[in-house]
């Protein structure tokens, strides 16, 4: 009993729309809940009222500023970063046919971090240089890992992870080296940033993160069908009419763009690209047409929740968000592996 291809496509679209719709609803709820939590307690009903866009909700000017100048931009950035990292992770996993492929483990995040640091050291006053060099760094790291992973026998999952470990550790040393050369007064802020820091964002970095997220996720989704076929093997995909090398290049560039934008705006937030796509696949199957957009939305939820914990749990002090994502991510991942 074979399903009519047109009907199959229809059900995929329907299922994707349903799942993504539900996740978007979840994202909205997360956003609202996260904006009512912070180191400062704001009146709940007045905050909810203000979030709907009304002006006379009884919030004092300070409370207004806390909510709209500090908290909401930070939650938006957390969402954009989660979207970027989870979508990039799902993209790498599909392309490299490796469940462990993740920006952090592949060294791509570190590549972007080196780029960002170079931008800060050499073009400190030009904010736009940060995402640009982060993107370049991510792209270079991706390229190197990919080349290292492809031996005479083709790319095996083990080789890929080994290549990732090599690139990650090499770039970590580069980061340590750069911090040593830097001004002592900036080291503390860097160690915090390296673990992921979403505070103090600027409108331009926030918009860059969103634009990159939108473009990157869209490009990945467009290539989802190709990625599905490539999961069968690049040879088979080629025979089925997929322009393998074009898809590969496009996905690499899109994923690097996503990682670069997120690292430039928030440092290296680990585990998002690993945990979120896995959870999505476990829940909804491994069709990339569904996994890629769903992972993007679920990633936003995950990082928003993690950052809400980071900024409230020891308030008025703060933890780096990367510490929380790792703390939630690592045990969750072990659980997933054991299941």
């Amino acid at each position, binding site marked *: 009993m074979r399903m009519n291809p047109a009907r199959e496509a229809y059900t995929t679209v329907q299922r994707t729309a349903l799942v993504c719709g539900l996740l978007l609803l979840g994202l909205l709820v997360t956003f609202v809940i996260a904006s009512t939590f*912070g180191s*400062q307690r704001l009146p709940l009903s007045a905050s909810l009222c203000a979030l709907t866009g009304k002006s006379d909700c009884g919030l004092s000017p300070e409370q207004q500023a*806390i909510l709209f100048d500090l908290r909401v931009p930070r939650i938006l950035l957390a969402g954009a970063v989660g979207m970027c990292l989870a979508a990039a992770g799902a993209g790498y996993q599909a392309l490299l046919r490796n469940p462990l492929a993740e920006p952090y483990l592949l060294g791509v995040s570190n590549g972007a971090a080196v780029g960002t640091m170079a931008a800060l050291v050499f073009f400190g006053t030009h904010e736009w240089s940060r995402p640009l060099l982060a993107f370049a760094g991510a792209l270079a790291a991706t390229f190197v890992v990919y080349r290292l992973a492809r031996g005479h026998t083709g790319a095996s999952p083990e080789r890929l992870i080994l290549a990732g470990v090599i690139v990650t550790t090499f770039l970590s040393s580069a980061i340590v080296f750069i911090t*040593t050369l830097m001004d002592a007064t900036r080291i*503390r802020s860097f160690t*915090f940033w390296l673990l992921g820091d979403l*505070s103090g964002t600027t409108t331009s970095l926030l918009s860059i993160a969103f634009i990159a997220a939108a473009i990157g996720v869209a490009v990945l989704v467009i290539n989802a069908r190709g990625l599905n076929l490539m999961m069968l093997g690049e040879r088979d995909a080629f025979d089925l009419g997929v322009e393998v090398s074009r898809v590969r290049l496009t996905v690499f560039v899109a994923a690097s763009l996503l990682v670069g934008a997120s690292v430039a705006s928030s440092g290296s937030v680990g585990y998002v690209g690993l945990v979120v796509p896995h959870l999505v696949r476990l829940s909804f199957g491994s069709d990339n047409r569904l996994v890629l957009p769903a992972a993007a939305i679920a990633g936003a939820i995950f990082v928003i929740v993690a950052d809400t914990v980071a900024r409230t749990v020891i308030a*008025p002090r703060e933890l780096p968000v990367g510490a929380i994502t790792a703390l939630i991510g690592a045990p969750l991942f072990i659980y997933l592996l054991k299941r």
Partner: protein
Amino acid sequence: MLMILSSSCFRRSGPVVTPPNELHEVTDEAGRRVLVPRKIDRIVSLAPNLTEIVFAVGAGDRLVGRTRYCDYPAEAKAVAEVGDTMTPSIERIIASRPQVVLVSTASQLEAFTRQLNDQQIAVYVTNPQSLDDVFRSIQTLGDMFGEATRAANLVTDLKKRADAVLAATKDQKPVRVFYQVSGSPLYTIGRESYLTDLLRRAGGISVTGEVASAYPRFSDEAALAARPDAIILPSGSAMGDANSTIAPALRNSPAALNNRVYKINADHLSRPGPRLVIGLEEMARALHPEAFK
């Protein structure tokens, strides 16, 4: 070649160059018991404030090692460098044959302290949490270096100046101050910092004075909600132009709106040594100009 090697080996394993020197026990500011020689003539300092204290009590000529950041007084720059505050070179320190190494808790050098202990080199740890603690550091180090009188005179003089500040600001209404250690990410001073005490003496109250730890990473929201009436930015000198602007979260604070943001030479505030009193005077003058007319 072999000759050189063996002779240098011999020198290493031979008797200590300094003549036998009676040891006595002192308790350092971390509560450790340290055995130091009665007569000290080789000192290594691993923090700029400690270098300043060594020179101020008149033992500068006995300093044989300092960090890259120890740039005051000018004579200090002639002393050999043994690395950074955070990453000093243990080999250079041992090679400079110090009898005591001065360390600040801020640099967190536990592992390192152990290595020096193994080499029979005394490590004296300082941990000032108030201006009085700084005076005590100056006196103890002075005593240790046989410069008790000079240290006592210095402390008396510094105390007099600190008391004068206190007298001038005593009747003023305390100003609620946010002390910005770094703007992005936001760091401030907490309960355990000597700067919280210093700010109180200058006629201010730190709005983050009750926060646990010495230099907490602080929430933007909490900083905004604190509504400080003045902001102090330690910047300039060794800091360069770092920390010369207030954090975005503080842009609409009463302090910023009323132009009460004060940049103060970071070297006077972030080095708990003799010049801390200059920092105190500068803060007090900034917060209460009318009291110093």
